[in-house]
């Protein structure tokens, strides 16, 4: 029982990290219908920027906040400009779906290796936010993980606020639901797409920072993060933020329980099987729909 509960909790922790991983992907796809195959490397950029600021501190402190701030600004600009100068022209072409995928893949390779040039191959880590742990009944959980879960929940909450109550957020939802409709009411779609990329890159970068505290980072690990994110957004329904969160939690728990009762090696095949079954029954994912 005890190990079951503990595995459940560790599943929920992985799940919330996976949710963080999937958020940025699902935002971009939900609004612009572009599938970001450079997702992993963008997360990694966020993590490396934060690392520059915290590399010498033992436990994350104010320098981390500064790092996060810089990462946010940098990634927003990167996303905005990237959309403006690459995605926008590509989207006007007939085979935009596959060419954007391939472009982002190429960009992924490029940036991965730029990171390798700058930071070298060695593994880096971002220190945990707070050391120590607490016990609740039979379950033990450490502070750092509580903070991660808190940040993920906060991020989801803020995103919801943004989409519901700000003009840009509403415009993004409008674009997601009907592009002609959005044009008719006078929304500058290209600008909104640019903002979307900026926002999604920021979310992705922050998820990268969270991942960096727990998974460590090296220039190549982004792909691994990305593939997991892919499974989750598909499972949850492309473009559905809530679906992605449920999917992430479900898959996190499945992973933990599969490791506990079977063996760690079964995780991927089981993920694939679940994924397949869900797609056969509900091709739009568990919560197909839009942002």
């Amino acid at each position, binding site marked *: 029982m005890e190990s079951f509960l503990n595995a459940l909790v560790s599943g929920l922790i992985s799940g919330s990290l996976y949710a963080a991983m999937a958020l940025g992907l699902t935002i971009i796809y939900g609004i612009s219908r572009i599938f970001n195959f450079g997702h992993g490397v963008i997360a990694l950029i966020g993590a490396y920027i934060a690392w520059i600021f915290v590399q010498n501190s033992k436990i994350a402190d104010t320098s981390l906040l500064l790092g996060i701030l810089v990462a946010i600004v940098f990634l927003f600009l990167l996303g905005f400009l990237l959309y403006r100068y690459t995605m926008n022209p590509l989207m006007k072409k007939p085979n935009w779906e596959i060419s954007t995928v391939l472009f982002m893949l*190429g960009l992924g390779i490029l940036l991965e290796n730029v990171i390798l040039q700058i930071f070298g191959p060695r593994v880096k880590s971002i220190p945990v936010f707070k050391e120590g742990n607490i016990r609740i009944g039979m379950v033990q959980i450490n502070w750092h993980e509580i903070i991660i879960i808190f940040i993920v929940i906060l991020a989801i909450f803020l995103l919801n606020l943004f989409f519901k109550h700000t003009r840009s957020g509403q415009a993004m939802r409008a674009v997601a639901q009907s592009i002609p409709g959005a044009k008719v009411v006078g929304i500058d779609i290209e600008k909104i797409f640019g903002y979307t990329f900026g926002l999604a890159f920021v979310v992705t970068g922050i998820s990268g920072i969270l991942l960096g505290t727990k998974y460590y980072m090296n220039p190549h690990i982004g792909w691994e993060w990305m*593939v997991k994110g892919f499974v989750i957004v598909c499972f949850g329904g492309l473009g559905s933020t809530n679906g992605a969160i449920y999917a992430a939690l479900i898959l996190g728990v499945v992973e933990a329980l599969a490791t506990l009762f079977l063996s760690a090696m079964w995780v991927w095949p089981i993920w694939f099987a679940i*994924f397949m079954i869900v797609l056969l029954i509900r091709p739009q994912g568990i919560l197909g729909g839009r942002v």
Partner: protein
Amino acid sequence: MKKIISNWQASFVAAIVIFLAAYPLLGPSSYLKHLFILFFIWSVVAAYWNLLNGYVGINSLGNIGFLAIGGYTSGILALRFGLSPLITIPIGGVVTGLLVTLFLGFPALRLSGIYIALLTLIFADSLPSILTQTRDITGGGMGLHEIPPFFPGMEKVHTYYICFVFFLIAMLILYKVIHSKTGLAFVAMRDSENLANTLGINRYQERLKVFAISSFMTGIAGGFYVHSLGDISPTTLSIEPFLLALAMIELGGIGTFFGPILGAGVIVFGNEFLRLAGTLRLTLLGALICGVILFYPGGIMQLVEELGTRIKVLFNRKKVTE
């Protein structure tokens, strides 16, 4: 419809085939022969991948997985049961075709665009853990080593010619497929959205057919891969070969017959020579991919076409002045 090969291209192709046939006689180093062998196999993989992505519009990202299934099947049969690669390679192809079509094609092809891409990608990604589960047979993370060559005592030159012949046959089959009723229908559909219905073909069924062909041939290529190189391991399924194969299609020119072959050439040779550039190699490659997609979306084939027209114009001008 546009002809796939123009005259001057035909003569160029003939020249290259002659060159490739004669190349080992020039006494190149074993390294270069090795590269050509890789080139032959990757060309086939890329070309049949392009059949799916470029011609039929199935955004598959799992073809490296097909390669691995074919390679592993053939390798295991040859290694554990001592069967001749002549038998095991076709078996590998059939097994790949069946497995992939049944478990992936049937469900995936009912889905739309990006879902197919993700499902096929995840399929390929779950293979390494399955290989580990079955490590008694597949060698797990260590992979299979000392897989017997096509025949005992084989040398690099023989491998070269065997792969060369395979390459030619595979391309011939591909040409036939593209020019079959199904293939032409897909080309027509790609060019005009609403044609599928008017042509009265069952889109799902035809797509499934092409999917089966592509996976079968990629599986066969996997067989040639393992028997030429002697090893296969889950690293074949890692991200780098996957990206390189996609880059071949994109650089060469997606949806063209010769594009993937040219792309394979550039990547196989370019990538190996770039190894001397050290860690900058993949940076350059990534930049190249991005640049081509943005500024040269037709890939090398577009360049070739443009050069062709320019040469034609030049010739015509000469004729006029004469």
